[in-house]
Structure formats: structure tokens, C-alpha cells
């Protein structure tokens, strides 16, 4: 498509190579995996051990347990609170260390924690939350003996009913080190930078106001470690993120909070947020309680007044307007890639092609069940289609239009783990955006109280001075780094079992999937 701008190449030749280096030295974060233990005193465990009055305090259980569940400190007569969360549960029976059987006084009893019934929901099952916590703690997939069923949720459809058809043995034996999980984001060949991220995902947009400063910085820091991106959301771009500029996507959303030429010039990717999966067609919501003085300052609004972003962009009512919009950004920052984040209406395929013709490098589909800091329940449940359908439709349509390899298709909206990521890619996405998973790593358990009052009681999605001090950036970034690492290990394992050297080989390989509710007897399914 002919561009109204001066060809990129000409501009690029006229500029020094160092143009992408910003004034502020960029943060360096090493991809080091180290334990990041949970931050609460009492961790929630799937199985708990109950000690009865028959206990004679002999200390045998503490002696035999390799996990260190029972704590009898030297010099103390009584047991301290047990570390329930490291107990592997009934799987322990076969290990010869099963304290319940070995207790001389039969004083111990193991039960499934009754609190599992109130933890999580259909999409994020208790097992999935606990497994994500374990990954964020250790940096590796949870050992099988924990018995977490975390590869799927329990929603009864979509990803939760799709499985991989792994071959009995890989067609090619590969070592994990041979497998490349990187993703190329610019496929337009338009002279703009070829940005490559090391993992096929980046962090979702969460604004300052919806989440805390600490949360944003933790996400940014993890993005640096994995050479990927985080996103500012629509609440402005704080100065404290300057050292992370090279790994930050700044969002231009309909509220245009804190959007300036300088903020657009700081980054390598700019994202237009047309719509959000949790509240498609409605515009961002930040309820009054959460518009604290600092948030109001950042957004240049009034403290304590709810902020409902308009919908849509008042300047965009056609693909031509959309292109004008993109050109505007491309003109201000001549080295940025542009992403269009759209929701999943029935004509999502047309929207995607339209975005391509308007000049987007990335089209980002945010499915109907996406995450949010605040959205009307009626919108979250009912508006627009789940992402699983949208990926298939868009991938197919872009392919038929002959532009599939010139645009990067990113999916989001309910992708919870490495298996969801791999399934999304196999259905046709190039990569994904993750959001809730990162927050769960930081200790979120989806109590869904982020929207009002002082915000998140667990200190993640809040700007309340007291609440947001519950954890540090150092801990937060380590948790997310660990989670990313665990996901990467799992993704590599999936690719290894298929004998694939690159994650890009998995894209669109629906023949490797099966759906539990279908006959799976189509030609391509065989």
C-alpha cells in the first residue's frame, strides 16, 4: 500500500544508528532464576496435615519429611506452624516418607484443603493458581508429584477442551538448547527495526492507577530479562519507567491519558488500544476510589472522579481514519512498530485485514474473556467472542488474503499458561500477550476486588500507599522472571516433543491439536 509518508528507508539513512538509544541508560536485568518464596506467612496448600492431641512431640515427622513440612525448631518443645505448601500430598505414600503412616502415635491426618472450594474459579482453577505460584517461586514447572492439574482450566470449552496430539516419540531428537522460542515482530519489510523478542509473548497493558507502580516496574524488569516487552496501559507513561523504555510498549488509548509526543518517541513499539476484551466497545474504566492524587496527576485529571474513557477514538470511523492515525504515530516516532489492539467482534477478520492495510505491524486480538482492573460484569461475560474462535478466523482470513506473513498476529484474553500459549500459536497466532498470569505470580488469587475501594487487598492492583508496599520490585520481578522461565521450559518441551526447532513452526498447526468435544476425524485432523 502506498504510504503518504516519505519512504522509511530514506529517513533511516539520514539518521544515526544510535537513534534508538534513549538519554537514560537502559536497565539491565539478568535472566537469573532464583527462589522467590511466597510472601505470606501462611501459604495456601492443596493438602494439609492435621495434628491431633495424640501427638507426643517425638519429632519423627520432622525427621522423615524430605520437603520440610513439619517444623520443630531446636530448643522448642512444640511444633511451629507447618509449611503446608511444600507437602506433596497423597503422592507421598509411595515414597517411604509418608508421615501419616509413619507417625508412631497416629496423630497425623492428611486432608484436601477445604479452602480449595473457595479459591479460584472455572477459568483459573485452584490447581492452576497454586501451580502458577509454584512456578513463580521456583522458576520451573511444578514437579508432577504435587499433582496439580494446571495445563487446563475447567471452563468446559475452548482451550480447556483442546489437547495436543503428541507423537509417541519426537520425529527428531532435539536438545532443549536447540530450540528457538523467539518471535519476529516486524514482518512488513518497511525499513523499520526488526524487533525480535526471546519468547513468543509480552506483558499486557496495565495502567498506573489500575495497578501499582511496583507492579508495573516488576513487569518491566522481567520484560528486560526475557528481552520482551511490557505495556504501560492507558494511564500515562511514568518517568520511573525510563530505564525500561526499550522494553516498553506505550499505549495510545481512547482516553489519551498522558500521551505526548515525547512518550511516543521513547519507545520501540506503540500500541493503539481500540478495544479491550473484558469490556469491548466501552472504553477504559477507572472508578473514583482509585483515582488517587498521584494517579490524577499522571492522567491530568481530578482526584476522586471516575474515569471512563470514551469509545472509540473520536477521530477514527473508518479504515482510512485508522491509517491516518497510524501515520501520525509513525511520523512522530520513525522507528517504532505500531500495534493495533482490537477486540473480537464477528467481523474481527475484516478488522485485522483493515489494520494490516492501515499499516500496522502487529494486530493484537483481545478476546472476550480478557482480564481487567474494572469492567461491568455484563460486558465481561457477554460481549464479543472468546479468543479461540477469533484466532482461527483471523489466521484463516489473513492467509486467504495473502497477507498472513506480513503481519504479526498476537492473541490475548484468557491465556493462562504455557499450554494456552502453545495452543494459541497452533491455532494460528504468532505470539500472545499475557496479563493475569503475571499478577497471579505476584500473589493475585482472582478475588476480583480490584475495581474499587482502596483497590487490591493483596497490593497488586492498587495505588493505595499502604497496600502497594506489600512487596518490592526486586521480589516482584523475580517472581515474574521465574514464571516466564517455567513457561519457556514448558513451551520448549512441547516443541521438543513435536521435534520442532522453532516456535514459528508451530504456528497454525491445527493438525497437531484435537478437541475433546469433536470427532477429530477430518482429513487434516488425521
Amino acid at each position, binding site marked *: 500500500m502506498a504510504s503518504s509518508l516519505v519512504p522509511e528507508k530514506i529517513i533511516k539513512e539520514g539518521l544515526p544508528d544510535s537513534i534508538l538509544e534513549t538519554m537514560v541508560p537502559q536497565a539491565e536485568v539478568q535472566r537469573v532464576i532464583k527462589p522467590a518464596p511466597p510472601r505470606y*506467612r*501462611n501459604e495456601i496448600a492443596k493438602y494439609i496435615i492435621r495434628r491431633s492431641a495424640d501427638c507426643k512431640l517425638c519429632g519423627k515427622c520432622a525427621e522423615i519429611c524430605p520437603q520440610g513440612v513439619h517444623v520443630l525448631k531446636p530448643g522448642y518443645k512444640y511444633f511451629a*506452624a507447618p509449611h503446608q505448601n511444600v507437602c506433596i500430598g497423597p503422592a507421598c505414600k509411595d515414597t517411604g516418607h509418608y508421615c501419616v503412616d509413619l507417625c508412631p502415635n497416629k496423630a497425623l491426618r492428611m486432608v484436601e484443603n477445604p479452602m480449595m*472450594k*473457595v*479459591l479460584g*474459579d472455572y*477459568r*483459573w482453577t485452584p490447581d492452576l493458581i497454586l501451580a502458577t505460584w509454584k512456578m513463580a517461586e521456583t522458576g520451573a514447572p511444578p514437579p508432577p508429584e504435587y499433582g496439580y492439574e494446571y495445563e487446563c482450566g475447567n*471452563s468446559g*470449552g475452548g482451550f480447556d*477442551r483442546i489437547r495436543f496430539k503428541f507423537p509417541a516419540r519426537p520425529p527428531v531428537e532435539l536438545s532443549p538448547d536447540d530450540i528457538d522460542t523467539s518471535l519476529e515482530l516486524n514482518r512488513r519489510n518497511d525499513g523499520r527495526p526488526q524487533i525480535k523478542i526471546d519468547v513468543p509473548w509480552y506483558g499486557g497493558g496495565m495502567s498506573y492507577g489500575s495497578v501499582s507502580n511496583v507492579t508495573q516496574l516488576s513487569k518491566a524488569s522481567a520484560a528486560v530479562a526475557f528481552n520482551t516487552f511490557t505495556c504501560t496501559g492507558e494511564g500515562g507513561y511514568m518517568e520511573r519507567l525510563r530505564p525500561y523504555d526499550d522494553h516498553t510498549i506505550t499505549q495510545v488509548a481512547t482516553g489519551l491519558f498522558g500521551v505526548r509526543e515525547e512518550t511516543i518517541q521513547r519507545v520501540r513499539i506503540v500500541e493503539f488500544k481500540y478495544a479491550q476484551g*473484558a469490556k469491548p*466497545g*466501552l472504553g477504559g474504566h477507572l*472508578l473514583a476510589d482509585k483515582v488517587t492524587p498521584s494517579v490524577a496527576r499522571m492522567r491530568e485529571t481530578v482526584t476522586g472522579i471516575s474515569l*471512563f474513557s*470514551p*469509545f*472509540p477514538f*473520536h477521530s477514527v*470511523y473508518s479504515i482510512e481514519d485508522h491509517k491516518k492515525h497510524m501515520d501520525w504515530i509513525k511520523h512522530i516516532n520513525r522507528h517504532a512498530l505500531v500495534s493495533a489492539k482490537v*477486540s473480537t*467482534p*464477528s*467481523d474481527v477478520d475484516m*478488522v485485522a485485514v483493515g489494520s494490516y492495510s492501515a499499516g500496522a505491524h502487529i494486530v493484537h486480538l483481545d478476546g*472476550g474473556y480478557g*482480564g481487567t*482492573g474494572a*469492567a*461491568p*460484569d*455484563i460486558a*465481561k*461475560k*457477554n*460481549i*464479543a467472542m*472468546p479468543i479461540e*474462535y477469533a484466532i*482461527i478466523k483471523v489466521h484463516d482470513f489473513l492467509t486467504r488474503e495473502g497477507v498472513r506473513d506480513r503481519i504479526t498476529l498476537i492473541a490475548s*484474553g*484468557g491465556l493462562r499458561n504455557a499450554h494456552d500459549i502453545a495452543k494459541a500459536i497452533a491455532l494460528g497466532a504468532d505470539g500472545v500477550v499475557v496479563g*493475569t498470569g503475571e499478577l497471579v505470580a505476584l500473589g493475585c488469587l*482472582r*478475588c*476480583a*476486588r*480490584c475495581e474499587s475501594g482502596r483497590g487490591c*487487598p*493483596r497490593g497488586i*492492583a492498587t495505588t493505595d500507599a499502604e497496600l502497594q508496599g506489600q512487596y518490592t520490585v526486586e521480589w516482584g520481578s523475580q517472581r515474574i522472571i521465574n514464571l516466564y522461565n517455567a513457561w519457556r521450559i514448558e513451551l520448549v518441551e512441547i516443541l521438543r516433543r513435536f521435534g520442532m526447532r522453532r516456535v514459528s513452526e508451530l504456528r497454525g498447526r491445527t493438525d497437531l*491439536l484435537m*478437541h475433546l*468435544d*469433536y*470427532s477429530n*476425524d477430518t482429513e487434516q*485432523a488425521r
Partner: protein
Amino acid sequence: MPDKYHIKTQPIPPRRPRIGKIGVVDWREDCANCHNCVKKACVFDRYREEMSYIRGLREMDAVFFQCMGCFSCVQQCTKGLLALSANPVYERLGNTYWTPQIIETTWAQAESAKIPVSGAGYRGRFSGLGFDSMWTDMSEIVRPTRDGIHGREYISTAVDIGRKPALLHFDAGNPAGGLPPLVDIPMPMIIDMLPRGYRLPNLLPVIKIVAAQTGVIAIIDSKDWQLAGNDLDQYLPNLAIYLDASAPLPGRELLTGMRLVEISDDGNAERRVRELKQINPGIVVAVRVEMDSGGIERAVEYARQPFVEVLHLVADDNGNEIGEKNPRFIKDMVRSVHNSLVESGLRNEVTLMAGGGIALAEHMAKQILCGADLVTINLPLLIALECTLCRDCNDGQSCPALIGEIDIKYGVGRMTNLIAAWHDQLIEVMGAMGIREVRRLRGEVGRALFFEDLEEATFGKLFGSRKNN
């Protein structure tokens, strides 16, 4: 600017102890009485509220269940004495169709009149039965108002009930034979009669005021008419009397004051309509068609009759075909009727009202997308009064929620709040769809996404045929 439709609301707290989803189990005997008690740190201040709640208790069976489920106290207690538990009372609310979640959100809306808003993504099943097997669409670009949420006052929710002729004939500049009467109400909702067992005697005086205040119409069974109270004159435009086969023709005064009347679909419908129109030619008559196994055929047949202008299609309380083992759902039945009328070019000859199983605001929007002009509701208004659908009243026992003792202000306030919240939510989804008036939402399946269609177009292509359907 013309007056905009607006429902005045004010918060009306519940009379009864709140029933939340989660409660705290507290093993006090091992408490260390430490100075940094997590109970003081509860972000929602629930423990302090609990104390004052207990002090004010009048019944000993009432338990405090208002925990928000953040687990902070559970995880921070020095001795690990706290645990959360699912509230068994909550889990027993309602039934499989009117789920505890539906009842809880109805209560919240009846209290605050606000659209329920929460954080985190959707928590429920991927899809489900009935209304859960469809989604409403959104439009990335086409907007009703160019102002998103700020332009919502420009979205019209008004509907006209009656016949809309496809063609007008003029006689000396005026429509020949006059125009058929139309009843216009400001939102696509009519208050239907409560199911028999739930008709507590003190509800009608409340319902008539609610109908008048919100501008909608309440249908009242002629058998219960006496219960609606005196001074009915001013309420007549917002009331519709229901006449079953045995009901005598109401008096002239009543009929001339009313805009809408409903009759049963017995064999005498035509004669009834004639009689009613004789007394008040401006009245609109709806025929109530119970959606049993022959419901769709009867409805379509009625629509062909020139004397029928409004059909009220009613499924059972759960939206199911009446008396069937494998019932069809109301949205699908209405869709069949709608499609059949569209095909035969008769759609605008009748207005379709659909009721039964409309439990949430989203159901109103979805039912209209499936072809109804408007919906009729009943049980949600009862739930607004803190009914739990325990059905004790159906068995002649006294109501545990003491609905028989409510005062007018409480009853009117709660029901009005609920209707206001539904109205706002309807606007919310219409705004997202880019539809500016609810008349154009009717049967607009281009703005709806159906589970079966999407599955077939995506997974069906990839994975073959779907099992068990």
C-alpha cells in the same frame, strides 16, 4: 433538549442479614492475642463490621457472611487460625437455573441501582445452556453516538406495542381507516404476573407504583385485581389486566383507562378482542401463548389472524418449553416464531413479547436479539425483595424472607433500582454493539454470536463433527 428517560433511584439496604458467598472460619482457642492482629488490617474492615453486626443481632441463626475472599487474613494470621469457607446458605440459594450468582447480583442491583462492576477477567464457564450459548457482538468502529459511554443518553430504549402496518393507504391526506393503536413504553420490559405460588397479597400495590414510576406496564390477573388496592385510576395507563377464558369482561371505566390488555389463547380470542375493542377502540390486546409443545405453531397461526396485534410468548419460569422432557429454550422458540413471521412478511403485523427465564439484564438484550420486541419479567422483581426462591410460599408456608411484611417504600425502591440497573446495562451492551435504538435490536442476529455457529465455523472445520448434539 427533550426530556430523557431517567429512573430516579436511591440506595435501599436489605432488611435481612446479607448472604455472601464466603465466610470466615475462626478457631479462636489457639489465638496468641498478638498486637498485629490481621483482623484489624482487613482492607474491607469486615471484622469490625462483624462485631457491630453481632451486637445488633435479633436472630441467633444469622451468620455473618460478607467476606470478600481476598485470603489476606488467612495468610497473615500469626497462628494460622483463620480459614475461608463456602457459605452453605449461599450455595442453596435459588435453583439450577436461578443460580446463587444470579440471586446475589440481583440483590446487589436492587440495593444500589448500579451496574455490577468488578475486577479481573470473566470467571465463569466458556459457554452454557440457554442464554449462555450466545454472545452479543460489539463494533470496533460503528458507534451509536460518537461518545461511547458518555453518549448513552442518546440511546433510545423505547418500544411500541401493537401493529405496525407495512403499507399505509391515504384518503385525502390522512391514513385511510386511521392508524392501529400503539402503546409506547420507555424500555422494552413489561412486568408479568408472578407465578401462581408466589403471589403474595401485598405485592400488587407495590408493583403498580413501580410500573408507574418506571413508565413500564404491569400485567395483573383479573382474579387478583382487587388486591391492587383502591385509587387505581391514576395507575391504569401502566396496568394491563389479564383475562383468562373464564374471566368476565371488565367494566368500561377500567378498559378506557388502560392501554393494554392481555387475554388467554383459548378459542374465543377473536370474540374477546372484538368485545374489548368495542368498548375501547384505542386499547391494544395481547394474546398470551403458553409455549408448550404446540406453542410455536399456535403463535405463528395467531400472527396470521388479522385480529391479533400482540403475542405474549411465555415459557416456564426457567425459560423452558412447558411440559416437555427435552424442552426447547425460550430464545430458540422465539427465534423460530420470529423467523417464520419474517419469512411470511408478517413480522410487523404483531409485536412479540417474550417471558419466562429472563433472569438477568443480559437476557433482555439477548432475547430481543433473538426476535422479541420486548421481554416480560416477574421473578427478578421478587428476588429484589430478598426472595431466595425457596418456594416455601408455594407450599403455603410463611415466607422466611418476610416479604409479606415489607413496606411500600422498600418494595418500590428495590424493584425500581433493579429496573434502573437493567436499563443501564441494556444501554451498555447496546452502546458496545453500536445500536442506537432498541427497536433496531430486535432480531438483529448480525449483532449476536451464537455458540453453535461459531463452533461450526471454527472448531467444526478443524476437528469434524461435534459430539452429543
